[in-house]
């Protein structure tokens, strides 16, 4: 009897712990396409909305990955998945993405892809800052403004572009490493959402219609 009670207690405890774990899962169908900026090696883009189904804040671990495979399912190339925001509160939605620039000269050899979402042991802490999208004739820029009284070191800016169905069709983030934005000053980040890429997306029924811009730094 005692053993049964102990076993049930251990089972309930482990279930409780599992429930307290953070869990990042896919919230919608993913989007994957291949594009080349300069007609040489292709870049494979992968975007997907995710949600934290757990009861704790969650970040992606460095083991989270996106890979492209041959017909037999063997991985040909691989990249770590990134997420915006970098940490999701319980029930919060975010987006995961990868830009895999492959050296494979023949994009047709890419028969399938695979992704793995793994939660980090400890969530990242970050601070958000306001940003605005600047539409130029060339690349799109995000302007990040430091509205705090401190210097904003190593700032990152991001863009999330969605189509008419609300699907993420382009996501990018840029880091200004070893750079500090003084209080009240701004810095523009190139987001690589070029007119050619927008034309490509329109031709493939993935025309971006909304853009979300933001900035953050890690604590």
């Amino acid at each position, binding site marked *: 009897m005692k053993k049964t009670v102990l076993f049930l207690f251990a089972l309930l405890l482990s279930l409780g712990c599992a429930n307290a774990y953070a869990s990042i899962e896919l919230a919608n169908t993913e989007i994957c396409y291949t594009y080349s900026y300069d007609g040489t090696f292709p870049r494979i883009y992968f975007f997907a909305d995710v949600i934290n189904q757990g009861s704790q804040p969650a970040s992606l671990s460095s083991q989270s990955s996106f890979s492209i495979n041959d017909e037999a399912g063997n991985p040909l190339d691989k990249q770590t998945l990134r997420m915006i925001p970098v940490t999701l509160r319980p029930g919060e939605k975010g987006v995961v993405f990868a830009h895999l620039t492959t050296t494979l000269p023949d994009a047709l050899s890419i028969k399938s892809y695979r992704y793995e979402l793994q939660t980090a042991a400890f969530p990242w802490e970050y601070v958000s800052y306001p940003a605005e999208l600047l539409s130029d004739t060339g690349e799109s820029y995000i302007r990040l403004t430091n509205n705090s009284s401190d*210097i904003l070191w190593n700032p990152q800016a991001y863009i999330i572009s969605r189509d008419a169905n609300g699907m993420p069709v382009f996501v990018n983030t840029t880091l*200004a490493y070893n750079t*500090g934005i003084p209080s009240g000053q*701004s*810095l*523009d980040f*190139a987001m690589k959402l070029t007119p050619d890429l927008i034309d490509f997306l329109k031709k493939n029924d993935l025309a971006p219609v909304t853009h979300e811009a933001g900035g953050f730094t890690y604590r």
Partner: protein
Amino acid sequence: MKLKRTVFLLTVGLLCLFLASASAQTEISWSATADTMLSVGSGASARAYFAGTFHNESDIAVAPGSGLCTLIDESGNVLATVSAACFPPVIPPGGKGYIRAEYPLSGLPDPDSGVAGFSFSFEPYPFDALSYTEFSPDCTLDNENFNPLQGYPVTVTIENDGHAPMENFLCMVYLRSNADQKPLYITETVSFYNRIPSGGHVFTNCYIPRAVLELLKEEKTDYSAVALLFLPN
């Protein structure tokens, strides 16, 4: 007959003048001074930092390209060669560039032999597709905020006083001897791909290894931190 001969000689003469002129225009003349070697650390962490100056003595712009730093012993034997980088990547006629190299001394075949001297070598080529304007912005060496991964920061203030946004430029810092103005240590170059709006300013950090500052202090060497900005025209 006489006229034909005259025309022939004139043509040959003009051709020779043209070839000589063309040859003179593409002739590259350059030199590289091996200014300073700093040996820091010991054992597995022993490292040498090399600083030098590239002089473009031609009347055309040149790209030094990737260079080499050759280490020699007291007998003049080559101990090792390591890659050397020169910034900016394009040197205007009569201009100068800053050469940087580093080497883990534990990699020497005989660590006890010691490096007695060094030299730089390049294969520069004519290049006029890109040019840079050099600026010397304000900078401050922060002796208080040591970064264990990178060293002591030199914070450079980059101001955009122009009417257009400023982007795609290079930033570097070097420690200059107050006695003879030679470069003592040159940092790695920071490539700045983001854009500073017109009228705005930001900071960027270049780092000096702790061991370098400690050595200069030990040798009582007076120096100044100098920042350089290379903005493409």
